[in-house]
């Protein structure tokens, strides 16, 4: 698989944007600037970006409670997102959704989702629509290692096979569902095999390596686009923050997060590879870091200044008409 410079710059920028967005959101939550329950994606960026770099305007994604990374990777406006976290009526969802429901239908983002495994059935529907219309778009759903034990997720997988629709199930194994390890919650020894037993191929990659994810996702998406029905992607990765902001993380082993940040950082891995291959210069990547930091600074300033919603907005946007 070969990448041109533009693709490489873009992939790095996307991952970097997610990381900086998340770390900043973390800081602002700790400051009391952001209300509600927020789940951060830092450490998992290569997965979202490695998948979404394959997608076009006609393709859709549906995300989880941990949705910022997927949304950014699929093209959501980060300033609108930051305003949404702030609960502004200028936010992407007018402050009505917040972190757990960030969506941008026009970008093919069918939303973050506060219900574990709420997304996969819906994604099968988007895939079904593609099939009915005779289009070659694909529909991606992201699921965590915990989410795959929810009945809706299994139903979606089977239905996708039965209807032979281009639904891609991306399973992000960050080892934990909340405080519980995948070693406990997934009863079988081999989650990839359990998933494949539903009747579609699952491609495995190191989820902290953009290139690996990109390759695996490419195979899955090609399979689905060609009309062969659903496919899966299964990646391992580290979650750098707690499950939610404020999580005391008593389930971590000694030095665990430090090790993850050291060995499973997609940005570090990407840079190391660029240094090795010489495809991009360190300065170019540094420039991206700087530009992204400026962007996120701007987003935070814009969010702080953005219009606050007023009471009259509470009961609008419920129906198209009623």
């Amino acid at each position, binding site marked *: 698989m070969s990448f041109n410079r533009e693709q490489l710059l873009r992939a790095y920028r996307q991952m970097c944007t997610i990381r900086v967005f998340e770390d900043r959101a973390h800081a602002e939550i700790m400051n009391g600037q952001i209300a509600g329950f927020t789940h951060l994606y830092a450490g998992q960026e290569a997965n979202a970006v490695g998948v979404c770099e394959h997608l076009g305007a006609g393709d*859709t994604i*549906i995300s989880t409670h941990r949705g910022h990374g997927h949304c950014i990777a699929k093209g959501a406006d980060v300033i609108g997102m930051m305003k949404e976290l702030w609960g502004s009526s200028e*936010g*992407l*969802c*007018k*402050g*009505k*959704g917040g972190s757990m*429901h960030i*969506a*941008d*239908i*026009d970008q093919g983002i*069918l*939303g973050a*989702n*506060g*219900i574990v495994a*709420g997304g*996969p*059935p*819906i*994604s*099968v*529907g*988007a*895939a*079904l*629509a593609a*099939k*009915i*219309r005779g289009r070659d778009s694909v*529909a991606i759903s992201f699921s965590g290692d915990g989410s795959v034990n929810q*009945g*809706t997720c299994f*139903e*979606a997988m*089977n*239905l996708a096979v*039965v*209807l032979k629709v281009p639904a891609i199930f991306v399973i992000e194994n960050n080892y934990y569902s909340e405080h519980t390890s995948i070693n406990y919650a997934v009863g079988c020894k081999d989650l990839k095999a359990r998933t494949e037993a539903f009747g579609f191929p699952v491609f495995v990659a190191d989820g902290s390596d953009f290139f690996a994810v990109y390759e695996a996702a490419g195979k899955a998406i090609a399979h689905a686009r060609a009309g062969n029905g659903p496919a899966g992607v299964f990646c391992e990765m580290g979650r750098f923050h707690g499950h939610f902001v404020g999580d005391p993380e008593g389930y971590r082993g000694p030095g665990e997060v430090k090790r993850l940040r050291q060995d499973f950082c997609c940005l570090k891995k990407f840079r190391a590879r660029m240094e090795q291959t010489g495809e991009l210069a360190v300065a170019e990547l540094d420039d991206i870091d700087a530009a992204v930091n400026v962007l996120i600074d701007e987003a935070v300033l814009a969010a702080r200044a953005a219009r606050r919603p007023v009471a009259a907005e509470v009961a*609008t*946007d*419920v*129906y*198209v*008409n*009623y």
Partner: protein
Amino acid sequence: MPKKTMRDAINEALHQAMAADERVFVIGEDVAGGNGSNGRIGCAGGVFGVTTGLYEKFGPLRCIDTPISESAIVGAAAGAALVGLRPVAEIMFADFIGVCMDQIVNQIGKFRYMFGGKSKCPLVIRFTTGGGFSAAAQHSQSMYQVMTAFPGLKVVVPSNAYDAKGLLLAAIADDDPVLFFEPKALYQVACEVPDEYYTIPLGQAAMPREGDDVTVVAFGQMVGRAAQAIDELEAELGITCDLIDPRSTSPLDEETILESVRATGRLVVVDESPPRCGLTADVAAMAAERVFHSLKAPVKQVCAPHSPVPFSPELEAAYLPSVERIKAAIRETAA
């Protein structure tokens, strides 16, 4: 005008909606039937035969059988609607909302709001509802009263074949998600139904009887029983009633109800659901709040007892509000 059963009227509506708009498709368990078998695909048309002929007419991409996976069925409809199609999903019995409630209530019903008004989810979910079949506790609940509680959803329950056709066509044309509850006890009941396409707006009540003494509001299967009760009382005692059939419970045509109560000062509300947090309380409370000063007598609720639906025919007959019970309530209110 030709007479048609409610089953046939709904079937006709589906045919016409699918012919008129290629974005419309149906999905559910055995809506075609026979898939994968050695027999005939399209042999079923749903267990009540309501989707008969759609598979032959519109083919496998628009009449889609599924495994027994209600959450996935509803989710699939939701996803297809979000990207621009207009699915009509069938969930065989309203009771099965239990296994797909999240997709209905937390997903479909909330997308538009959570997404700041930027999405549309134009779909219909059809259910059979209610008692009368000795189908017992897990196949006889009305459930529309429960779904009325959830903002973001529209809820329809027709009481006759004519309304069923027009309401379903309106529901399919609607840009919001609509839950469409078909009283299975009425499938075989016929009335005059035009052959052509027509719609009945959601949120607009019908008033199959007009009178002076009491306002009777009844839902779905109970509309016919209320009409019979009213007719008998008029013949027996000269009491006359407005009978209001809201047709949709969300939106509810509040004005028609309130206006009638302003005139009669007396209200009886009839539904086959159990008493707690249901539609009889909903309508009664609205009257007690908004037209209190017009009320001349206690508002009466006629509904099922606070118990699951029993199997035995005698018990089910005792469970569902009878014409006699409705008459007694009207008589007491009018006294």
